[in-house]
């Protein structure tokens, strides 16, 4: 590919665009300065839900995000992380946690108070909820998987199940859809925190 340039009309009398003048291939060209918006997506409401001190257990649904019908919003997952800790020495081993869709919201569970990243954000509609320790929603497809090792001489106490910045893709939860973080089929040891960040938008 050859480098080239576009030659603009002669300078006019209007506003001035900032640029940097450089010499490329013996031609003086201008590179326009653009300001990358530091607060990306800042015009969309952004929320966090953190469940802490969750007891491990085989096939436990540590977190369920529900976007029930009637919210009139789409949810995009920005970041979802599982972190393990212990309050005493434990004999641990690598444990798996999976991000999956479910076809319902299950029953029970404890609602988490969702935090606004900007206190000017609109309150979430009642149809959008985040709960922990929900009972038996119906599993659909698994989206991503990760693992942690709570063993005190081990490592890797955290796993990022989803990060929009790394995945380069939106993960969308439409109306009438659910998303869950589920532990694999072994009880294991330790304590789990789950951090979820998401943003809402209209279609």
């Amino acid at each position: 590919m050859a480098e080239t340039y576009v030659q603009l009309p002669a300078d006019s009398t209007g506003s001035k665009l900032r640029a940097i003048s450089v010499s490329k291939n013996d031609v003086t060209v201008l590179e326009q300065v653009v300001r990358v918006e530091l607060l990306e997506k800042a015009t969309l409401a952004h929320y966090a839900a953190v469940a802490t001190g969750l007891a491990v257990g085989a096939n436990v649904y540590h977190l369920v995000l529900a976007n029930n019908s009637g919210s009139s919003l789409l949810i995009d997952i920005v970041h979802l992380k599982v972190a393990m800790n212990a309050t005493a020495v434990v004999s641990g081993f690598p444990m798996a946690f999976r991000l999956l869709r479910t076809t319902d919201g299950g029953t029970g569970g404890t609602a988490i108070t969702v935090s606004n990243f900007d206190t000017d954000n609109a309150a979430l509609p009642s149809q959008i909820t985040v709960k922990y320790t929900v009972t038996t929603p119906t599993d659909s497809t698994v989206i991503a998987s990760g693992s942690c090792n709570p063993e005190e001489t081990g490592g890797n106490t955290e796993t990022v199940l989803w990060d929009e910045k790394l995945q380069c893709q939106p993960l969308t939860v439409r109306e009438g859809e659910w998303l869950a973080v589920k532990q694999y089929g072994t009880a294991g040891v330790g304590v789990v925190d789950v951090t979820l960040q998401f943003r809402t938008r209209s279609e």
Partner: protein
Amino acid sequence: MPTEALVQIPPTGSGKKVRADSALHGGNTVLAEYMQLGPFMNSDWPAYSIVSADSALLADKVHLHIAPSTAMEIVLIKISHHHTAASALAYPCAFWLVYHVGATGVSGGTSIMGSVNKLDTNNAAASTYVSQIYDNGPTVVGATSTQKVASCAINAHAGQTEAILYEEKLNTQRFKLSSGVYTVTQYGADSVGSIDVTCIFRIRTS
């Protein structure tokens, strides 16, 4: 040596407004246009994920097998290890991303096409774009040669439970599959426990 300069545009008109930041540079009031990084990166193309779960570690095992039928781009391949009990017999374990040139078929293993997840449920079915997705130790058929694309390792004993085999954002390159078969293949030793393989991909439909 670069120097500060400016381009002077025609006087402000009456049309749409482009957001800009006004600042004084070199004695001139200049505008720097705001650029917003795409809030929904690459969202013009359908994206999917597939997870091969609870795949027991085994020497030379193919943990994931993908055969594209159109141009697909790998976003992420992650290996995560788990176990059901502590084991002092475990050790670091390697995995390779292997391109099987000219391969067309598969024998054995289990098709997991039905487990492919749409990152947006409005996407078309993944089978529209991908001809084979298998796990559980399939054998690649018809390859004329193989090429290793990437390598990573987890430590099944203690320490690193996860490894990234490919990450588009880190590699800053487009990794496009359009022919043959790609596999996530374990190296030539067993180790202990099981892995999940997470693969996220998109289809460039235009």
